């Protein structure tokens, strides 16, 4: 039987002060969207990003205990599969910029204080007209 020595724990590699990667920033963006929090696009170290991800995850799990429907379901049209001769709309976005869906969600949040239902209804009407 082959016995392989596992590499030692690289303790000197620990560096929570390196700038947070695009991957962690995207993860934050997704979590902020899921909990309904305004995106805070600020420079973070990896350690700071991790702490914030932990905070957002805790908030998300707290919210999941409630019966409120997830906010993400009221935004953005579905990405439809392609049928021959037709090009679907794809909900897009990049690492650096907010996704369309996230931006739409933020607008929904901002409008919530005024009249949530009216805002949603207007959006639906507008979308139907534009088709």
């Amino acid at each position, binding site marked *: 039987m082959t016995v392989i020595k596992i590499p030692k724990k690289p303790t000197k590699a620990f560096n929570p002060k390196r700038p947070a990667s695009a991957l962690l920033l995207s993860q934050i963006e997704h979590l902020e969207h899921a909990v309904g929090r305004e995106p805070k696009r600020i420079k973070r170290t990896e350690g700071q990003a991790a702490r914030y991800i932990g905070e957002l995850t805790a908030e998300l799990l707290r919210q999941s205990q409630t019966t409120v429907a997830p906010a993400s379901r009221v935004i953005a049209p579905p990405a439809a599969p*392609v049928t021959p001769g037709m090009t679907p709309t*794809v909900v897009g976005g990049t690492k650096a910029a907010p996704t369309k869906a996230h931006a739409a969600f933020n607008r929904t949040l901002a409008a919530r204080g005024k009249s949530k239902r009216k805002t949603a209804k207007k959006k639906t009407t507008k979308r139907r007209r534009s088709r």
Partner: protein
Amino acid sequence: MMENRSFDHMLGSLKAVDARIDGLSGNESNPDTKGNIIKAQPLADYQGQLDPDPDHDFDAVDQQIFDGGTTPTMQGFIKNYFLQRKDVSHSQKIMYYFPANKVPVLTTLAREFAVFNRWFSSIPGPTLCNRAFAHYGTSFGHVDMSLFYVNAKFKSVYQRLIDANHTAKLYYFDQVSSSLEVINLLKDQPKLFGTYDQFLEDCRRGTLPEYSFVEPNYSDHDGPDGAVIASDQHPDHHVAEGERFIASIYMAIRENPALWSSTALLITYDEHGGIYDHVPPPSCMPDGFVAQPKDTRTGQPFHFDRLGVRVPAILVSPYVAKGTVVNGVFEHSSIPATAMKWLLPNFDNTQRSPREAAAPTFLDLLTLDTMRTDTPEFS
């Protein structure tokens, strides 16, 4: 599923010890921005060489594969990495790969079990859209890091299994590392999730679900017992910590005899992370979506009709013959496809992506009638 390393970078050295493994012969090269021909070399280090993180957005990978042309020559890696630091010498490090003895966990598992010569990332693009294929069999038209699951047409493999009274779970490392790409499930179905510590406990108790997906730690952060080092191997995280993570998963399964005899472990990477690989990605079954030029940033739409760059993939089980080398083409849709073939073989194909429905599965690699007793241990 680990992060951002190409097949050649991690396993390319194995060609020297087993010619059936499609790694590096020593003659593979890329031109740098001054026209020098730079060969792939076994000089990869655990940390410090790939900073900044090599670009692996769709347009960057397009340059890496096509080098501005229309043929996938795999000749644009150095030129693309040069764009980030404008340092010719540094850009050449994108060609470095690990000698086998520097990544003993991964290379031992590759030689002792089944290694895939042709496992490609699902999209020539970044992390989240590639990982989406492992969970949903599609990225719903996305080639970037945006929210892909809003009004998703197809259910995740976990939802499908749970709906059919099977058991499934995603284990993220800890709450601070969290889950990467299925935040929607974390909110809607938190019971689908567990942590790495719970995974180890479930292995000890023999209470793993029928299907599990394990995520590494994505960040260096403080834990209750001190420093927690990232284990995802994403550049510039320390590769040895990822080796330790993979070994811990393997040993957790192996140390429970009942679990070991009934479990197959697939180890793979989401995408190549901008790091050199010599095999041009092939065409594939389109998944029914089209990404627009504004999202691909190449001036062209993408029909999801070709795969991304090759990544390491290893199937571990005591029923896999030692030294198996797999030459068929696989990609991440093969993960849900295999789970479905095993647990829900009569699942309605209209309820999953055409890509997943057509994806090859890999449980037929469990060819042995009796369990092996010569499998390796990690000390």
